[in-house]
């Protein structure tokens, strides 16, 4: 909480605040000191909050018209699209909103990777973030099942069958998940329940994520600690509120473009065919945001090991604060890490691309190399790099780096030569 003791001006405010310190909390949030060198990559936290609220509001309204039954789900979605007032708009916001949510979360995660935001003392913020990301994937997957189209049905079949790879109890777990001997009505109703529940779990975790953030405060582009007391920070309101607001507007333009001009481009045409347990679509492909992990799954020729590799690819992120041994947070001062960072970005994009392609021939070979590199980056390159890399001198304070221009390599070098 804030260093200074907040006292409400009005008599009633003081009376209320003594009993429930909501006004103190509001005061803490508006005065919250933020590093003054935050760039636009730091606006995605606010954008993600907007995405979550958008999904909850549109999801609640869709749930008023949707019917979670295998015989009626597909029709009820078409009913929403054709009959319900603005149903098409609400559904398109919700379905494209999922993609926008993942777009924002990937930028948010890669911002952390570049600026070392996951490092001490912010490990708990990072791990809560990974849990939120896992829950987002579960929610997105189950939400995709609800329209009960061909991709819904067969996506659900393939993903739930991943659990059958577990030795001995696998088949039992799959039957338990399905509530039957195949994906059917019991599967749909429980997926709907969980899809409704998960966003509220995410909301709770977001509160913890922000709470944990407000203990050490924000990381920043130069990755050094804020000096207290100093001119390194500005209050959250109005400075960051305005900056976040502007970035959110830009983001909403992209969002609106998808909704109004090409609402189905991120989906699959097969999902406009009602689920048929007797016919599998020719190409089963998950939504774009899951493709890198799908590529990792398919690159391993063994069923169980493929599943293990896919899960490890996500869970390895939770160990990142300890795998990265470098004391320097920001990639700005880590010339080698910066290059490996961009190789990792390219590697994940390549995995995403081959995940959408058939798993054969050259695509399979590329997927295998890219999968191997992904694990190499986290398990070998990061631990070794932190010990071997010669980092650049970091600025003495945020104010110094701001007054000296943008915190980039050239500036840092200039400073070095000036100092000499």
């Amino acid at each position: 909480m804030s260093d200074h003791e907040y006292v409400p001006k009005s008599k009633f405010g003081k009376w209320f605040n003594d009993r429930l310190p909501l006004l103190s909390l509001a005061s803490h949030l508006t005065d919250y000191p933020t590093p003054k060198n935050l760039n636009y990559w730091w606006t995605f936290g606010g954008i993600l909050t907007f995405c979550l609220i958008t999904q909850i509001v549109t999801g609640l309204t869709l749930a008023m018209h949707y019917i979670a039954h295998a015989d009626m789900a597909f029709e009820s979605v078409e009913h929403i699209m054709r009959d319900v007032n603005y149903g098409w708009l609400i559904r398109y916001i919700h379905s494209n909103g999922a993609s926008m949510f993942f777009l924002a979360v990937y930028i948010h995660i890669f911002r952390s990777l570049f600026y070392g935001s996951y490092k001490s003392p912010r490990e708990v913020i990072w791990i809560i973030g990974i849990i939120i990301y896992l829950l987002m994937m579960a929610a997105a997957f189950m939400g995709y099942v609800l329209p009960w189209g061909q991709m819904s049905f067969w996506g659900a079949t393939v993903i739930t069958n991943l659990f059958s790879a577990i030795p001995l109890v696998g088949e039992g777990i799959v039957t338990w998940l399905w509530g039957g001997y195949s994906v059917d009505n019991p599967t749909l109703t429980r997926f709907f329940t969980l899809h409704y529940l998960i966003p509220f779990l995410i909301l709770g975790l977001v509160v913890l994520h922000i709470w944990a953030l407000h203990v050490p405060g924000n990381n920043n582009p130069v990755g050094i600690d804020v000096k207290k007391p100093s001119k390194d920070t500005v209050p959250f309101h109005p400075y960051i509120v305005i900056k976040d607001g502007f970035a959110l507007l830009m983001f909403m333009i992209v969002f609106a473009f998808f909704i109004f001009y090409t609402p189905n481009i991120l989906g699959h045409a097969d999902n406009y065919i009602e689920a048929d347990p007797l016919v599998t679509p020719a190409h089963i492909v998950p939504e774009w945001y899951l493709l890198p992990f799908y590529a990792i799954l398919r690159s391993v020729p063994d069923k169980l090991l493929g599943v293990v590799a896919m899960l490890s690819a996500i869970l390895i992120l939770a160990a990142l604060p300890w795998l990265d041994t470098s004391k320097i947070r920001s990639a700005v001062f880590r010339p080698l890490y910066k290059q490996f960072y961009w190789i990792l970005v390219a590697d994940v994009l390549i995995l995403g691309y081959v995940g959408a392609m058939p798993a054969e021939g050259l695509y399979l070979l590329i997927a295998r190399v890219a999968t191997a590199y992904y694990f190499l980056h986290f398990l070998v390159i990061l631990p070794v790099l932190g010990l071997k890399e010669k980092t650049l001198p970091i600025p003495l304070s945020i104010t110094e780096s701001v007054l000296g221009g943008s915190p980039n390599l050239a500036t840092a070098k200039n400073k070095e030569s000036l100092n000499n």
Partner: protein
Amino acid sequence: MSEKKTNRRDFLFTATYAVGAVGVGATVWPMIDQMNPDASVKALASTEVDVSSVSPGKTITVLWRGKPVFIRRRTEEEITEAKSVKLEDLKDPQKDEDRAKNPEWLVMLGVCTHLGCVPLDQKGDYNGWFCPCHGSHYDISGRIRKGPAPTNMEVPKYEFVNANTIKIG
């Protein structure tokens, strides 16, 4: 209190934890088990199929427990071909005789053992089935020959009620 010795209070603690654990388990189990197949799903456990109209070289697909079951009336050549395969060539070695009690009729779950897609009839490199999802090839006995699937397509429990009727399940 420096003496480290079991007394009556320790016994009470242990007994409380034990009873508590049983109570929690007994409360949680119904919440977990309610997700297992219910009585109405289990009631659909068997299906009878009239196969009198199936001519040799044709496959029909029926739905059993929400899953497709392939029933193929195989031709003489297909039976010979299925029987001629050497067991060493198979990823999941199984004799054709063990899969089709009556060699004319092959009854199996039309579910790829990789990740559960439905393979296509008379496709693939072995004149049997081909799974379009991840490229598994099955022969005319439904045995895995090439691709990521670990095992042959499953043969369910079935019996001929009479010459024209198969009861699956």
